[in-house]
């Protein structure tokens, strides 16, 4: 019996399906049909067919990766069977500590009262962007108006969550720093003086 040269003729849509897989695994938001067509440089009809193939391959019960059509387009998600495992991955036990950068930023904002990013940066001697963003994301500090003057920078203050995490009823319970100054203004002056010295 003649054997065909190729036992399995690759489905011509396979290459396209692989391209779509690649696009979907890199995307951080659902991809619309238009976006997929533009990126793959293909006709809508063929992309639709390839998505159909992928829908069968990445189906609930068959694969841990599931292709889902949502409002914004197409995206991969985890299968329902793996929901518990995913929950364990994302709800990891409480995080122990804060990074040095986060702790310093938090201390400055807590002791000096509303403080802008540039001010935190000046006191710490390094850019404060990521530290501030991280603390905002964790809900430990929040925006509190702007500095005086036109185009004043956004200022931040600590939140009630901060007080809870640090076991304080309010900010007046922060450990006193008499050696640094009697009040926030004096501590602020001292910190600025030191940072100026550091960069002098």
């Amino acid at each position, binding site marked *: 019996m003649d054997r065909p040269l190729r036992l399995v003729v690759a489905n011509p849509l396979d290459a396209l399906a692989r391209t779509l897989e*690649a696009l979907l*695994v*890199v*995307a*951080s*938001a*659902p991809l619309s049909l238009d*976006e997929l067509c533009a990126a793959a440089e293909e006709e809508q009809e063929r992309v639709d067919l390839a998505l159909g193939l992928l829908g069968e391959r990445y189906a609930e019960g068959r694969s841990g990766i599931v292709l*889902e059509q*949502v409002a914004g387009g197409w*995206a*991969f*998600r*985890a299968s329902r069977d793996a929901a518990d495992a995913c*929950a364990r991955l*994302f*709800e990891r036990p*409480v*995080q*122990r*500590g*804060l990074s*040095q950068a986060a*702790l*310093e930023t938090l*201390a*400055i904002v*807590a*002791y000096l009262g509303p403080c*802008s990013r*540039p*001010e935190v940066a000046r*006191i710490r*001697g390094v850019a404060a962007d990521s530290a501030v963003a991280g603390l905002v994301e*964790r809900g*430990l500090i929040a925006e509190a108006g702007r*500095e005086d003057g*036109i*185009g*004043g*920078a*956004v200022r931040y203050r600590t939140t009630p969550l901060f007080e809870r*995490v*640090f*076991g*304080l009823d309010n900010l007046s*319970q*922060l*450990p006193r*720093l008499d050696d*640094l100054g009697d009040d926030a203004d004096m*501590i602020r002056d*001292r*910190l600025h003086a*030191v*940072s100026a*010295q*550091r*960069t*002098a």
Partner: protein
Amino acid sequence: MIVRELELDLDAFEGPFDLLLTLVLKEELDLAEVDVAGIVVRFVERLAEREQLDLEACGEFLVLVAALLELKARGLFPDEEAELADLEPEEAAEELARRLAEYRRMKEAAAWLVERLAGERDRFFRIGPAPLAPQPERRLAPQDPAKLGEVLRLLAAPPATVSLAHMELRFPPVAQFVERFRALLTRRSVVDFDQEVGGLTRVEQAVAFLALLELRRANQITISQAAPFAPIRIARAEETAAANERTPAWIVHSA
């Protein structure tokens, strides 16, 4: 070979050696930003292209570079002046060789990184959370408020004896802000200039603004302002960026 006409192509300066010297002496170019080793390498390369050793050129070059190095060393390490003066010539040569060797290794490591990047430019991966991933819940363990006081005390303590912090320039180089704005614009499509520089010193703001003009001149950004004194908004110059983009790009980030 005429030493003063030696063409240089450094990060901080491009042009003949003579012009560099003039700018340095007029204090229009900060020596801290000048890679003197780069000048030496360039000179040695030129020297190697010739069959005969040009003694006159070598002598002149040595004098000029030594002067440059001394000026730079004084600027960078005022406290170490005494320490360096104590070194015997042989020790100084050994120390120089050691530092040079260390720097050469790092330069080669940098070259390795460039090559590696070029090889990895077709590796695309997702940065950030997946579209339909569960929202991570990041609960924090209870923290000790005493730690806050501790870190603040450290920040309020005067810097230790020999600090190299004087290397942080009081007049920040324009390049610092150019790099900063570029980096910001790779993350965000529009940046509010006033917000970025709010709180900086006047000098820093001025330098930041120069950086903006520099980027605009290079057609890398667009600047808009609705009315006089309204916030200044900076955006990437998309099409020009795409057209000029010839450098290897290797990572991706979803839209």
